[in-house]
């Protein structure tokens, strides 16, 4: 753990920030010390992002001081903050998609030899940085080819390349798998040992517990707790964040599965999944676990008509052909995307347009009935506890409220079979609990639910039955008593299991 408390390198003192007439940060004080890892946690909308942006020089405070080495500074630009050794890694990647990995790492501070770029040096240094992160991606590949986790590693490599004294990371592990997360944690420890001050946010409290030395908890734009991370356990953190007693995170598994409503056999999504067969009952929550890249999302996008797929699908016993997702919707099957920002919601539009987009025909009698839409929005805001102004565009809502709106939008079509991909990615624990309640509530109403999730605890806590996918196939099924973290990991990694038949055949041929 970190050594004795030293002078902070970067700190905030009584910082407030207003947008127009609305004050979103109230007198925040926070100190980052060299060689210590500081975790900043709080619910969505608590003001973490704004706090980080002020620290990194993206936004000036409305009042209060940003102190660098004890002296007040006002960064003219984020470029200046970066030159002074403060780097920030965003939740949404800040990479040029068409440029290569090495071009991105050195973007804006390219190495030159005379007039020309010194590509060899940049390539070598990029390789060395990525090797430190155990990231094996080729440095000459364009960013657009990379997986989310590799993009994250490139972001970190870029920060590492700049003699960073203070590294600020906004939810760095949200898109990482467990293995990648542990590599990142190792890097963070190495940075700490090298004397870098690290600030990060995360919704995964176990990570916070594992790595943080100092902890600041925010709620509603103010600091509600700060001190050494060792003084608070995960339960205490959650309560401080939410500001109330946290009861059980997951609702009781009290569903009574009814008849089979979905029967999939031999579903193949070319290039992603092969020979997927399963059944789903009314009132049941089926969890889908597996590593990122195991074909979970693609399988269900194929099922919902969003990708080309083949196989036999029966809904309520009737064979159906689904080539487009509107056909799936007509059959009462709906897929809720994992990517609410680029596939789920129109960020530049208001809540009403977003809410009714999928079920617009219900509000259209030749002309659209705007009043009925508004009434539907009233209901959605109430039923799903969506907070935030109706006047702003959806892009301004917090992640949790966006997810609730996406949920409300889907439910407007009244689907009976709902596939929910990553229901709680990047949302806070209070909202998570609400989402779990919603999902269980839908099952209690007799709807059939599939939950795809990378969070093992979520699958275990929520699902009645779990399918684990590996390399585009179903690696195994777990039911009530056998749903354990260990069993899921074994199946997902393919440990202690005979080779799939097809693969064995290929090997012998």
């Amino acid at each position, binding site marked *: 753990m970190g050594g004795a408390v030293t002078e902070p390198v970067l700190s905030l003192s009584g910082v407030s920030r207003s947008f127009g007439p609305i004050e979103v940060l109230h007198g925040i004080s926070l100190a980052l010390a060299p060689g210590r890892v500081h975790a900043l946690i709080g619910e969505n909308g608590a003001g973490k992002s704004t706090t980080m942006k002020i620290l990194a020089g993206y936004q000036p405070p409305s009042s209060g001081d940003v102190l660098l080495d004890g002296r007040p500074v006002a960064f003219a630009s984020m470029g200046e903050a970066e030159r002074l050794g403060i780097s920030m890694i965003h939740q949404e990647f800040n990479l040029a998609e068409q440029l290569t990995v090495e071009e991105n790492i050195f973007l804006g501070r390219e190495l030159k030899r005379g007039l020309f770029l010194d590509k060899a040096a940049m390539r070598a240094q990029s390789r060395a940085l990525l090797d430190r992160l155990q990231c094996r991606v080729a440095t000459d590949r364009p960013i657009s080819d990379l997986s989310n986790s590799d993009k994250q590693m490139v972001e970190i490599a870029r920060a590492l390349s700049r003699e960073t004294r203070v590294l600020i990371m906004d939810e760095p592990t949200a898109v990482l798998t467990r293995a990648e997360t542990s590599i990142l944690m190792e890097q963070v420890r190495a940075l700490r040992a090298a004397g870098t001050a690290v600030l990060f946010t995360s919704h995964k409290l176990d990570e916070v517990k594992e790595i943080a030395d100092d902890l600041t908890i925010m709620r509603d734009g103010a600091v509600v707790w700060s001190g050494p991370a060792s003084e608070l356990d995960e339960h205490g953190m959650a309560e401080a964040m939410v500001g109330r007693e946290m009861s059980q995170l997951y609702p009781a598994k009290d569903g009574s599965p009814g008849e089979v409503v979905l029967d999939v056999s031999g579903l193949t999504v070319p290039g992603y999944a092969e020979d997927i067969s399963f059944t789903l009952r009314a009132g049941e929550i089926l969890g889908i676990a597996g590593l990122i890249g195991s074909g979970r999302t693609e399988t269900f996008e194929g099922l919902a008509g*969003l990708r080309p797929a083949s196989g036999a699908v029966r809904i309520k016993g009737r064979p159906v052909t689904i080539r487009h997702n509107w056909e799936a919707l007509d059959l009462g099957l709906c897929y809720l995307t994992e990517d609410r920002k680029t596939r789920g919601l129109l960020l530049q539009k208001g809540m009403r347009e977003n809410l009714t*987009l999928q079920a617009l025909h219900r509000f259209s009698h030749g002309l659209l009935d705007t009043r009925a839409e508004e009434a539907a929005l009233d209901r959605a805001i109430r039923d799903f506890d969506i907070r935030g102004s109706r006047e702003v565009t959806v892009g301004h809502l917090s*992640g949790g409220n966006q997810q609730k709106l996406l949920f409300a939008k889907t439910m407007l079509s009244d689907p009976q079979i709902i596939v929910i991909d990553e229901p709680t990615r990047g949302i806070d624990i209070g909202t998570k609990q609400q989402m779990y309640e919603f999902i269980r509530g839908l099952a209690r109403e007799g709807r059939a639910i599939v939950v795809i999730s990378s969070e093992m605890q979520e699958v275990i806590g929520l699902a009645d039955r779990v399918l684990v996918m590996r390399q585009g196939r179903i690696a195994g099924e777990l039911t009530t008593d056998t749903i354990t973290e260990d069993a899921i990991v074994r199946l997902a990694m393919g440990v202690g299991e005979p080779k799939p038949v097809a693969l064995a055949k290929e090997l012998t041929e």
Partner: protein
Amino acid sequence: MSTAAASPRKVQMSVIGPVLALVILVIAGALMNPNFLGLDNITNVLARSAFIGIIAVGMTFVITSGGLDLSVGSMAAFIAGLMILVMNKLLPSMGVGVPIVLVGMGVALLAGIVAGLINGLLITRLGIEAFIVTLGSMGIYRSLVTWLADGGTLSLDFGLRTFYQPVYYGGIFGVTWPIIVFALVVIMGEMLMRSTAFGRHCAAIGSNDQVAKYSSVRVGRVRLLTYVMLGALVGVAVIMYVPRLGSASSATGLLWELEAIAAVIIGGTALKGGFGRVWGTVVGVLILVLIGNLLNLTDYVSPYLNGAIQGAIIVLAVVLQRGSKAGQ
């Protein structure tokens, strides 16, 4: 995440901006030339606005859904040429009368729909960029009309032209047909954009086609429909245009695509799609036509500089749009 409230005042500025510009133009015109607000001049301005205006209404839908059509000017010329050829060919057998004019109108409408369908299918089914497809078809139609006219001018038979002319020059209660048709197209377009599922879907697709796809919107079909609708409206514009001069040549409809696109953008529709308003497009068209008209009526600036002033206004409109967005 911070909630920076979107300022409603700025949105209003972008709404009233074009209207304000139009009002200033009208006042300036009235001060500079007393004939400017005369009935004759107003009728003239509106009638001349009608061709570009009808096309620009269709263009508003294409642009709102994230597309673009550069071919409309050439398409208009080609359809005009085709219509004249067909009518001249049928003249010996059908004679001058209403039926032959109706057939001509039918040909124009059908040709427009087919042309729009071809553009739309290439864009939606083959997934080629709209810019490329319509750049190609722009060249093709322009060349086809030159070929049909054998490098010269296609003229409608004189008797037929005299019979057909009232469609441009005639009207009811002193309002000429092009103005009436333009008004109808605008009213229907505004309703379609503002309060139908189709209009909402166009905006959704232009805003983010992935979101639209995942929301079960039939993205391909909606896009295709916008191009077909635009094609049909080009046909309508040609029906109004042919009786005016009774001829078509390789110079017909030159730069109409630019004027139509410019009108859409000046009217406040986002060039990258996602937001469109038909009434704004009408304001845009009026601004463009009024500038030309003013330069002709006054002698402060040479009418030859018309294009330069229009160009400056287009750039200015986009700068203002950008300015109101930077306030996020």
